[in-house]
């Protein structure tokens, strides 16, 4: 079984400041890792994903994430946030082996960007 822990339920930040949203996971098998964003009253949109290769992954809207296997982390970063980045962010994992592709999501981090 897998579990995902998003360490901060809410992250307030000022516009143009950098931000890091933390995600740690636990799994007995290798996993694929994802970050999704959910704007109010909308579904989830994929920001980026790590499947293999370079541990630094770049996504849409200037976001990037780094996979750290030893620390089982996949933190999301942006060097300069905008008001429009205010949203809920979800980290998710999907097991690679075993034939089961059931995703596990974290509880989400609310990013609040202040002017």
């Amino acid at each position, binding site marked *: 079984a897998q579990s*995902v822990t998003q360490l901060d339920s809410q992250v307030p930040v000022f516009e143009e400041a950098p931000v890091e949203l933390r995600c740690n996971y636990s799994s007995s098998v290798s996993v*694929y890792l994802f970050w*999704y964003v959910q704007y109010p*009253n*909308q*579904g*989830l*949109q*994929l920001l980026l*994903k790590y*499947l293999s290769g370079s541990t630094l992954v770049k996504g849409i809207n200037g976001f990037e994430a780094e996979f750290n296997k030893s620390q089982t982390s996949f933190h999301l970063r942006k060097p300069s946030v905008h008001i429009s980045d205010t949203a809920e962010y*979800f980290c*998710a994992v*999907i*097991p*690679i082996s075993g034939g*089961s*592709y*059931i*995703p*596990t*999501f*974290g*509880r*989400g981090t609310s990013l609040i960007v202040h002017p």
Partner: protein
Amino acid sequence: DAGVTQSPTHLIKTRGQQVTLRCSPKSGHDTVSWYQQALGQGPQFIFQYYEEEERQRGNFPDRFSGHQFPNYSSELNVNALLLGDSALYLCASSVDRSSYNEQFFGPGTRLTVL
């Protein structure tokens, strides 16, 4: 391209009733997954449909059932509704069953059980 569409947008039911939610996948997608997102929580996987059959199922009771039609659209049925079933129900579609292919999510159906 309309993307993933879901209906209705909002729904209010009482305990014990039954509900049907509908989803039309993005054009070109043949796999549909359903998720339950309780308030303040992340989405929880309910099940996935491919070729009109349930292919994977999360930890949800048999009260939750589904169907996929030949045009790839899908329905989620919940029987004997409980207060705890109140949530946002999300539908996601993808080009196939592979876990690493991007899922496109619909806006969801907000179900309130009174």
